[in-house]
Each structure stands twice: as C-alpha cells, then as structure tokens.
C-alpha cells in the first residue's frame, strides 16, 4: 500500500496544496515508481487518497505522457526527434538505436531491459541528439557513445537481477535511483 510505504512523502505532498486533488499528479508518480507503471491498483489507491473517482485519476494518467499505462523495460529511453534535434541528426540516431536494439518505436527489448520511444522537445536542443533515460538527461549522443552506455545498463540490470534473487521475499525497500 502506497499510503503506508510512502507515508511521509505523501504527507509532505498534501501539505503543499489547499486541495487534495492537487496531489493527484505527484501521487501518480509515486504509484508509477512503486508498480513500474500506472496500474489499476495504483489508480485506486491514488483515487482514495485524493478523494477522487478512479476514472478521473485514469483520465489524468492518460492525458499526461509521462505516466505509463503499460509495463516498461528497466530503462526507459525517450529520444527527442523534434525539429531542433532532428536538424542535428536525431531522426537518424533514433533509427540506428532502434535497429541496434532490434525494436520498433515504443517497443521493449526481449530481455526486458530497454523500452525506446521518441518524444517531443525536452529542452536540450543545443545538445542534440539527446534523450532521457528514466527521466535523467543524457546528451550530445551518437551511436559510438550510446553502445557502451547500453552495455553498461545491461550489465547493471543483470547485476540487479542477480542481487534481487535471494532477497525477493523482502521487496519493501524504497528504491532510490529508479524512475519516479
């Protein structure tokens, strides 16, 4: 349950606003962090916390693109292919990246490590091609720079899987560096 696990975080969020409804977006981020995407369970919990109808919460999650309604890979790569980035080769970079990973736009690699999609302007046009990886900026990219990064993340994912195996029973620890 989000309410128990993130009690202090949630309390702080509610303290910021005069209405409960204003907390819906920050709470959806917490639900997404907990469940990996915005699932029905998360929606129901957020709705209960904010005194909203689950349908209203679902409409918020559907309207805003940073809430994912499907499970994603461990690393969610969002490449900007908007005009300013495209003028500096972002379309080609994105095409090469998809080919290298063997996925289509919005697809997840078979090992479940990467989900790739192209997104609209991320306010980093001077450092194109660029992307966000789990909402952290990664800039001035080309495939030469990208391949070692992908290898590194793959290794990290493998290690995390290893580490998670024996400790699967106590999965309650709050993740520190994961996506919101």
């Amino acid at each position, binding site marked *: 349950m989000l309410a128990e696990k993130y009690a202090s975080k949630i309390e702080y969020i509610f303290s910021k606003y005069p209405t409960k409804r204003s907390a819906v977006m920050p709470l959806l981020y917490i639900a997404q962090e907990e469940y990996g995407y915005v699932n029905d369970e998360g929606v129901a919990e957020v709705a209960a916390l904010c005194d909203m109808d689950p349908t209203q919460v679902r409409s918020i999650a559907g309207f805003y693109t940073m809430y994912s309604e499907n499970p994603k890979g461990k690393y969610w790569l969002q490449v900007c292919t908007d*005009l300013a980035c495209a*003028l*500096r080769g972002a379309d080609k970079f994105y095409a090469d990246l998809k080919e290298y990973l063997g996925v289509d736009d919005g697809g997840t690699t078979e090992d479940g490590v990467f989900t790739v999609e192209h997104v609209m302007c991320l*306010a980093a046009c*001077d450092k194109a091609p660029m992307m966000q990886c789990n*909402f952290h900026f990664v800039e001035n990219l080309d495939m030469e720079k990208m391949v070692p990064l992908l290898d590194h993340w793959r290794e990290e994912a493998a290690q995390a899987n290893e580490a998670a195996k024996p400790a699967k029973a106590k999965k309650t620890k709050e993740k520190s560096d994961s996506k919101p």
Partner: protein
Amino acid sequence: MANLNIIYREKDVPNIHELPVYLKHGGYDALKKALKMKPAEVIDLVKASNLRGRGGAGFPTGVKWSFIPQSEPVKYVVVNADESETGTFKDRQIIENNPHQLIEGSLIAAWAIQATAVYIYLRGEFWDLAQSLDQHIEDARKKGLVGDNIAGSGWNCMVYTHLGAGAYICGEESALLESLEGKLGMPRVRPPFPANKGGGLYGEPSVINNVETLTNVPWIINNGADEYKKIGTEQSPGTKVFCVSGHVEKPGNYELPLGTTLRELLFTHAGGIANGKQLKGVLPSGGSGPVIRFAGNDDPLLDTPMTYEDFAKIGSILGSASIIVMDEDTDMTWVAAKITKFFKHESCGKCTPCREGTYWLDKTLDRIMSGQGQEKDVDLIASVARNMQGVTLCALGEFAANPIIYTIKNFPEDFKARLDGTAAPVVVAGH
C-alpha cells in the same frame, strides 16, 4: 562592452547556485530591500523598468502585477517553468545554475502582490532539476529567507515546486493552473482572467510569470529602473537569453542585450552557420512563430535588431527567442511537417478547430511528403490553417497554423518541388 550577465551570473561567479556563494555576492539583498518598500512601490519600480515577460508574449511585468486586487486575502505567484516550446532551453539553465535568483525574484513578486504562496510549475521532464530546486528552497528556508517571517520582516510566504507530466499545453497559463489543481491541462475560458477573483489558481487572483522574467527582478530592485533601461532598447529594455539551435557551429544559450542584431548572435556568438553553409531560414520563436526567409549569409535582414518591435516589423515575432537556424539544404516542407506533428501531438483536444485542424494538416502533409500530393493539397492545408486562427481558447491553435501559412508563403518553391516530384519522397518521423 563586456557581456553583462544579469541572468546567467554563474559565468561571473562560479557555484552561485550554492546559497553561501549567492549570499556572499549580494544574494537576497534585493528581497530585503523590497521588504522595506511598500508593495505598491515595488510594482511601480518594476513598471518603470519596463521589464517585459520573457515567456513569449512580452507583456509588461509590472503592469501584470498591478492587475491583482489588493483587497483579496489569498493570492498566488505561479512561476511558469514548463519550458516546452521546440527550441527553448533557457529556463533549465537558470534553474540549474542560478536558482536562488529565481527564488528571490519570485518572492519579490509575491511581496509586491502580497501573495500567500509561490508555486513553481516545472515540466515533468525537469525531474532532476525539481529535486535540486527543492533543496535550494530548503536551504533558503533554513536561513529565514523563505517561509515564515522572511528576513525578520514578519511576512510569511512559502515556495513550492510542482511537477507536470509531459504536456506542452501546460505552458499556456490557464492550462497550467488547471494542471496544478490536479485536472487535465486544458485552457480555461476567459474572463475571468488569472489576475481576477475566480480566474487564478484555486480561484484566487494569481500572477503567472516566466522563470527568466522573475530572474531579472532582483537586479532591477538592486540597480533601479533607470539603470535597467540603459540596457537594450527603449521598448525592449534589458538582456534576453537567446536559445540558438539547429545549423550553427555553437548552439547554446546566449544572454545579450535586447537590440543585438541577429547577425551578431549567429555569426559572432554562435560561430556561424555549420559546415560553411548558407542561411536559408530562421524560426525566431520556436515552432510557434512565422519562419523568416534569408537569401544566404549576406542577407541584410540579418542586421535586424532582436527586439519585440523590430521582429514584428519584419513579419515575425521574437517570442521566447528560441532561434532555430536552418541551412540551405533544409527542405521547408519537411520543417512544416515536423512542426505539425508536434502540434498535433500537443493539442489538448478541447477546441475542435485545433484538435481536428492539426490532425488533418498532419494527414495531408504526410500525403504531400510521400510524393502523393496534388496542387490543391497545398491550398487545402493553407485553408485549414487559416480557419484555425482566432477561433480557439488558447494560442496553440494559432501557433499550429503559423508553420503552414508561413512556409507556404515564404518558401513556395519547396512545395512546388514536392508536388512535381523533384524532391524525393520522405516519411517524416514523429507522433
């Protein structure tokens, strides 16, 4: 004259994002000075400086503040840090490198309108930035500069951050307010305007200012309106951050006095057109404004001073000064198609002309780009675009029409090449 860095002070003072460094270099002095003035005097000073909103519209900031009815007990300052226009990346650098000047400027605005709280609305992608900004706010709060009894004045005002979640439309002020209230980011019917009771955040009178606008304010309080007006031009005083992207050697943010020529920006600061090419077009306010046509690097239009008034004279707008540069090899039909995909994706869907218009513009442009277009298709998209203007609740519908209208008007030969098959068919990537 050496470059004057009002906004990007990190260029003169390393690590100014840290509170002790900011304090050592006069940080929060302007707030303390403002707190000794009457709120109306602060508004008058900012009015006298003729500081104009840096988010795009260029509206005089002091005048905006003066619209707030003082009789209302609850009022808000909302900082627009939703920076989402294609080609805009200036506010991010401010929040990253000079956050306290933004916090200080926001609090001066809050004092001027006697606000009860400040909300900084950051686009969701600024996840990391919001975390660090929260820390900076907390640092200032511990020093008694944010929150209760600010600088011993007895006045209380808290500063909060709020993250969006990926919606360009939330940069539009009424959609931003909706989003902050936990609703879909869709523009409101006005009046009532945000400054009026019933129109602002939670229905209370609210001032919504851009990040760069508010970051100017401490300098104005410290140095006075007359000093500020010595920078820039009479109608466009001060410095402005110009975001340069696209086909230049050195893309980036350049803070320069308003009135600097486009030539100086592109050729002295941004290193000139990349790979020795010739200049073909410039979008001076991201995807939203009319594209300007250039006949190469010697075009006298390059000597146009970058001000709100001069860019209006040459048939475009300065807007947020997101200068997207395109060289001679750029196909303007592709540019139109690319920007249209952006607006189609970002249209919130509330107003029919924008929702349906962007959809059909995109579909028809796809046909033109694939080599299947007919001459009447160009007339068709021009007509759809014209009919989107002036009939939507917010400016998005208006903006989405510009790339169509002005690429057709200013680069007819590119459309001709598409239709007669001279240009190779292309699939334009985008949503």
